[in-house]
């Protein structure tokens, strides 16, 4: 699972990197190409005599069309500036688009206008015209004012086009100020056209904000006063000086600004004029005109000239700016959708193959990709998978590139147009370039994304674009009132959602309680139910508070997203609640962070072999999700009073404040019931948070400045090998080195493999061996799962972060495999399933085991375990033992084999199941169990049948082995990896209580040991035995955690850590004391535990546990157990192990 997350992370990172690389390349191209275009234009027009045009009555005629809506404040000034334009053949058409203010009245008064009869040839259909006005004053004979019914900017322009007489039309915003020679400069490209028809031409638009305007002329140029205006000034420089010029030169320009652009009227009419149904009518027209020319197969061009011809006012309020950018984005999408057939269509040349794809991928998707990047950043942050150095370097590069581009644009503009020539303005612009990424860019991105959203929500229209006029009056509204209203509305809308969630969640808890009563093998006590309800109630209110806060924050930006968040999160929580408690019933384990420590293949295998993945279950899951989501969605459409929300949040805050230990008093009940009473969601979240913190850099920060335990050495686990030989006294010396076979039985717990076990003895053969073996009755495994059994038994190794085998690379160390191999043993590992599970084969390979026999090595003559859901775990234990037996005799040197059984693993599907279940029943009768014990045993019939199967397989194995000459010279070690979690625990330590037998024909005497030992002690004692008795070479310095089977978990050993699962390292044993999740217990001679309170002992044990944890952390950080030199010097000339 972790691997898959990493893969997804890598793919996402690469997609963003490639996208950024493309943008970087495009901007480099724009910068360089635009510079060439500007240089060329400057050279070509350095000495142009525009008087040739101004004094020639045969120059092409232009019609300047300016639609106006509610422009009463500035319209008179604006028209005056238009009337002062230098151009011989010019008419000015002002189209009043049904203004609600006094625009038309002001014009009539100022310019002495009179309504006249005017025949309009409606080439393009428009809304109706109320009247046409001309001036009686000859000075204004160029001016025509049209009053029409409101129809939008596009419609107004179309009216102007219908009325116009000029050969070319210039469409402008009426509040724009044109340079007096603007039309002269604009006319020149039209006069210069030869083979390629010039159909549209734009000029540079500059910001009039804060400029001094007199009589319709800009007399003093200044940067805008506000930062938002300055940022836009910089944007316009980049867009017009670089962007438009580059695309113009490349014949790829598809946007002539609606604020100022000249068009060939004949082509505009042929295309049908402006489209009234789009908010991006300017870009849409240019694309349509280009499309028309491509369809007609006529040569044409669309260009932009870099002369600053037009001055306009930009929004200096964030709200209006956002509306503007929102509209621009919607216009872009509308245009791209309307002309989608041109995309990547070679018939349309550069338009289809370059311009439109560029606009789609980078202008449209740019905001979306960037916004997605921000969201993913937050997710990666929460998952703790950000590589900070990489992140900071990348962000710095992106910011620096943006700043470079802006600075370049400013300087290119300076060298060509010289608009902002004041030193102070230049300095401010440069500062603006540095600040823009931090204070402006995100606003534009979010506005763009909201434009995308609004497009799909079918929100049309321009929104209110309040004009300030050149007098700069501003609208103010109360900041506090606005925010209070938003919060109040947010709380009102959250209330029904929160209440529905609370109801659904508590209902799911009710179902959980009922399920336990039906399907748990033990009686559910009222106290358990009470505790479960209490914990879940606390959890629910805590969640309501957190989600509520997020809801309010999102609501501030957009209520749709906030409701979506709440409904999705709550529905997921309720649905997953079912998954959590069903998992608990199935496995008797709480699901925590260990979910993420299994690979997808492992999870798939577990799910498939357990048989939970089937159509019925999946359909049920979908049904439950729907049943949760529907009421939540319905609730999201309502709004109540704010009080329920406030109460929920307050209760949630109280729930956070109440200490956890107050919530969970000690239960005098079984571990299973204690686990059942825990809120499954709370446990899942907490374990993941704890795991995340443990793995993040925070784990190393000592917040409270407590004393840090000194780790004195770079190799804290390393020590001299001085293990006492405890086995030698019990064995006779063999003429040749004995073989060693370690058999690890899956799920072999003491509870059901010993007469003293609380279930009973269901392994008669193993039990019979004990009296012929050295038997440690109180042996403990090192974990509650199989993942750590091999490194513990074979290497006595610490856990690292999540089990020794989870490490990407194993640090060099000594284990039984490599030591015996160095001493000329043949080493093998036998397993009936996939040995790559839990990285077992990887460990064996790193130890250069000679033979790894797993499911791939078995012939078809062997029997697999029955499959569930189409998948079998692997080959039955009988097959595994048989495989091992078949390999005997082929080896002429001593061998060391490790066998791990499989049949007694969940879902406990074995061949001849009925036979073994009968055997269980027979054994139950034989054991003479009381009523309750019998009932308990019968409830675990499936599990016990599987263990009896393995027991019988072992019996046959030994019977067969006896016929082999190796038998007499072989030492057998039999143990379990952990107790079955599916069988209820009486004590917490029962999870780890497994038998340990050392059996051999070489034994001279047998014994049963009652002191507490662990799997950590096996390797040291074995090595000591072989060294002392057969002079094998062993390392002088080792990293064993255990001191040997004579010491076990005694005080002298320092204690032993136990890792319950891959993310839970919470158990520590210093016999007779047992520390479990911060609580202390005392163990008796049978490993029954009782709560124990002694501050001194508590402190000592915790201190020892801390020491171990610090050593373990050092291993995690440095990834070293021993110096390389010690490892290499031991293996010396043994090239295979060096």
């Amino acid at each position, binding site marked *: 699972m972790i691997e898959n997350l*990493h893969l997804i992370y*890598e*793919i996402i*990172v*690469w997609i963003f*990197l490639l996208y950024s690389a493309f943008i970087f390349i495009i901007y480099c191209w724009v910068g360089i190409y635009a510079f060439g275009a500007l*240089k*060329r234009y400057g*050279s*070509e027009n*350095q*000495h142009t*005599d525009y*008087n*040739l*045009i101004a004094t*020639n009555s*045969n120059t*092409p005629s232009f019609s300047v069309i300016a639609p106006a809506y509610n422009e009463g404040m500035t319209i008179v000034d604006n028209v005056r500036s238009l009337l002062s334009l230098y151009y011989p053949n010019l008419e000015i058409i002002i189209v009043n688009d049904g203004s609600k203010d006094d625009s038309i009245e002001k014009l009539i008064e100022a310019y002495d206008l*009179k*309504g*006249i*009869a*005017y*025949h309009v*040839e409606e080439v393009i259909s428009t809304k109706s015209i109320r*009247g046409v006005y*001309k001036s009686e004053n000859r000075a204004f004979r160029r001016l025509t004012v049209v009053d029409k019914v409101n129809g939008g900017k596009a419609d107004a322009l179309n009216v102007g086009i219908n009325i116009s007489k000029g050969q070319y039309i210039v469409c402008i915003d009426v509040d724009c100020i044109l340079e007096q020679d603007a039309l002269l400069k604009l006319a*020149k490209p*039209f*006069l*210069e*056209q*030869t*083979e390629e028809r010039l159909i549209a031409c734009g000029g540079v638009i500059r910001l009039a904000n804060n400029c001094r305007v007199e009589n319709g002329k800009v007399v003093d140029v200044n940067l805008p006063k506000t930062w938002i205006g300055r940022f836009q000034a910089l944007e316009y420089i980049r867009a017009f000086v670089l962007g438009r010029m580059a695309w113009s030169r490349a014949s790829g320009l598809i946007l002539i600004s609606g604020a100022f652009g000249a068009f060939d009227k004949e082509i505009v009419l042929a295309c049908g004029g402006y489209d009234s149904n789009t908010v991006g009518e300017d870009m849409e027209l240019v694309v349509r005109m280009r499309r028309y020319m491509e369809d007609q197969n006529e040569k044409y061009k669309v260009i932009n000239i870099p002369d600053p011809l037009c001055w306009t006012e930009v929004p200096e309020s964030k709200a209006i700016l956002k509306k503007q950018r929102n509209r621009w984005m919607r216009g872009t999408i509308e245009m791209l959708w309307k002309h989608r057939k041109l995309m990547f269509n070679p018939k349309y040349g550069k338009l289809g193959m370059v311009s439109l794809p560029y606009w789609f991928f980078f202008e449209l998707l740019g905001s979306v990709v960037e916004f997605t990047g921000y969201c993913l950043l937050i997710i990666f942050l929460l998952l703790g998978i950000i*590589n900070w*150095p*990489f992140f900071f*370097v*990348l962000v*710095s*590069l992106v910011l*620096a*590139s943006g*700043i*470079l581009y802006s*600075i*370049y644009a*400013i*300087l290119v503009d*300076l*060298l060509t147009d*010289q608009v902002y020539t004041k030193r102070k303005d*230049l300095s401010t612009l*440069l500062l603006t370039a540095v600040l823009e990424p931090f204070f402006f860019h995100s606003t534009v991105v979010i506005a763009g994304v909201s434009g995308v959203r609004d497009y799909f929500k079918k929100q049309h229209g321009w929104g209110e674009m309040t004009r300030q006029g050149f007098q700069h009056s501003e609208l103010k509204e109360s900041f506090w009132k606005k925010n209070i209203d938003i919060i109040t509305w947010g709380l009102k809308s959250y209330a029904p959602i929160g209440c529905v969630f609370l109801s659904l969640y508590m209902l799911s808890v009710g179902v959980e309680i009922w399920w336990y009563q039906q399907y748990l093998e033990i009686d559910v006590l009222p106290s358990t139910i009470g505790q479960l309800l209490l914990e879940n109630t606390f959890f629910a209110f805590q969640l309501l508070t957190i989600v509520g806060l997020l809801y309010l924050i999102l609501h501030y930006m957009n209520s749709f997203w906030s409701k979506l968040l709440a409904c999705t999160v709550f529905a997921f929580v309720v649905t997953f609640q079912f998954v959590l408690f069903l998992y608990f019933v199935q496995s008797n384990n709480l699901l925590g962070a260990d979910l993420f420590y299994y690979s997808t293949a492992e999870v798939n295998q577990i799910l498939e072999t357990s048989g939970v993945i089937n159509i019925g279950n999946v359909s049920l899951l979908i049904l439950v999700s729907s049943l949760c989501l529907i009421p939540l969605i319905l609730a999201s459409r309502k709004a109540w009073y704010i009080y329920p929300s406030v109460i929920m949040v307050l209760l949630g805050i109280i729930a956070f404040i109440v200490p956890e230990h107050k919530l969970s008093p000690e239960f005098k009940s079984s571990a299973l019931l204690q686990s059942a009473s825990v809120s499954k969601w709370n446990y899942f979240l907490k374990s993941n948070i704890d795991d995340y913190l443990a793995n993040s850099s925070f784990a190393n920060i000592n917040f409270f400045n407590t004393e840090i335990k000194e780790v004195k050495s770079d190799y804290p686990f390393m020590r001299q090998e001085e293990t006492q030989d405890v086995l030698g006294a019990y064995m006779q010396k063999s003429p040749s080195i004995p073989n060693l076979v370690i058999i690890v039985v899956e799920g072999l717990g003491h509870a059901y493999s010993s007469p003293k076990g609380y279930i009973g003895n269901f392994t008669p053969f193993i039990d019979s061996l004990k009296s012929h073996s050295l038997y440690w009755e109180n042996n403990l495994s090192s974990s509650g799962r199989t993942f750590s059994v091999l490194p513990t038994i074979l290497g006595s190794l610490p856990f690292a972060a999540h089990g020794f085998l989870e490490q990407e690379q194993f640090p060099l160390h000594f284990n039984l495999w490599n030591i015996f191999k160095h001493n000329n043993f043949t080493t093998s590992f036998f397993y009936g399933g996939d040995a790559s599970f839990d990285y077992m084969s990887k460990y064996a390979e790193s130890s250069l085991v000679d033979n790894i026999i797993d499911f791939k090595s078995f012939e078809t003559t062997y029997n697999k375990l029955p499959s569930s859901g189409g998948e079998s775990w692997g080959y039955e234990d009988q097959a595994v033992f048989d495989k091992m037996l078949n390999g005997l005799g082929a080896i002429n040197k001593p061998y060391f084999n490790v066998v791990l059984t499989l049949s007694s693993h969940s879902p406990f599907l074995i061949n001849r199941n009925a036979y073994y279940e009968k055997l269980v029943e027979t054994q139950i009768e034989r054991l003479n169990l009381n009523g309750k014990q019998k009932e308990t045993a019968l409830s675990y019939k499936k599990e016990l049948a599987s263990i009896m199967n393995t027991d019988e397989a072992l019996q046959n194995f030994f019977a067969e082995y006896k016929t082999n000459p190796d038998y007499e010279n072989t030492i057998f070690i039999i143990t379990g990896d952990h107790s079955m979690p599916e069988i209820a625990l009486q004590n917490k330590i029962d999870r780890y209580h497994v038998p340990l037998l050392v059996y051999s024909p070489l034994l001279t005497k047998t014994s049963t040991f009652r002191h507490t030992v662990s799997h950590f002690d096996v390797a040291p004692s074995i090595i000591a035995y072989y060294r002392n008795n057969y002079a094998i070479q062993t390392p002088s310095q080792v990293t064993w955690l255990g001191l040997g089977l004579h010491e076990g978990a005694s005080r002298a050993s320092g204690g032993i850590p136990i890792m319950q699962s891959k993310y839970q390292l919470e158990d520590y044993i210093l016999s007779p004391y047992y520390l479990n999740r911060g609580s202390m217990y005392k163990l008796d001679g049978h490993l029954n535990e009782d709560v124990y309170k002694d501050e001194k002992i508590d402190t000592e044990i915790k201190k020892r546990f801390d020491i171990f944890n610090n050593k373990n952390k050092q291993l995690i950080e440095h990834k070293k157990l021993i110096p390389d030199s010690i490892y290499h010097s031991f293996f010396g000339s043994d090239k295979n192990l060096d």
Partner: protein
Amino acid sequence: MNLLFGSINELTLVFLTLLIIVFILILLVMGYGYRNYQLLSSRRKWTTLIETKILLAILNGSHHIQDDVELKDLLPNKNFRDTFLSVLIESEKKFSGDAYRVLIEIFHTLNLKDFAWAYLNHKDSFKKVQGIEALTTMRVEDALGDIQLLLNNPNPFVVAEAQYAMVRFKDFKGLEFLNLLHTPISEWQQLRLLNSISEVPATSYSFISSLLSHSNISVISFVLSLIRKFRIVAFHDEVATLLEHPNSIVRILAVRTLHDIETERTFPLFTQIYGQQILNVKKAILHAIRKSKNKNSIDFLKIELIEGKPSLQIIAAETLIEFKEKKYLQDLMNEEVSNEHIHSIIKHALAVRI
């Protein structure tokens, strides 16, 4: 952690290198920009200085300019010389006669001629154009031969400037290149060339005739402009033949030209060919009638008012107003009671107030 293509440490190093490069580029761009800003400021100052010097030279004579200390100090600077040339070229537009000759004297005195020659021979096309402009404006006849060779330059901007230079030097005779010209001349270039021609000698009429039947439409267009500018009535009949030219733009220009060189045959000819023409040509004819104020066309206009397309009806109505036929229009409006379309057009023409 390993990424799909390379480890994260390698990528970090790559991006760190790029970051350093970007920082260096920022510094370079700022440095370059600052240097050019300084240059621009200098150019502004130099322009003011040069204009002052030129004015003084025009007022007081150019003999002192050679010894001017300020200019002497600055002339070795290539950018200063470039600015000086630009100012001289711009100044040529403002000055004529003796003042213009002073400019030429300055040009030669300060050895800016060599600088202009260097530009002419430069590989860069824009420098070549600057060279042509300078040498042409300063009337360096020696350069004519070199400039003539540039008429075949692959860069159209160079060719246009060379064409313009030919006309500047040789007046109408400079148009010889039109004979073999197969690339179109833009309207802008036509304007420039036309503006530079001071007269059309009668001996060149056969040349003009030959150009009127050129395959290059833009050449015909230019020649018609020439005829219009100089009102060469002798070409009336030849231009009239162009009314049947397949290209509608030529026909429109022919109408305009015929209007400018109008004879008694012109308007009968217009009315004769009117019916077969496309809308734009008809408009041109009606506009020509309107401008000519030829009242012989009144009946024709009245017919067009009733029968023509709406855009032509409007022009016809407006022309009738100009020809003082207001009463006729008002009577027509009263007669054609039910014809709203005619009412609208007549009201439009009458500019009836509402």
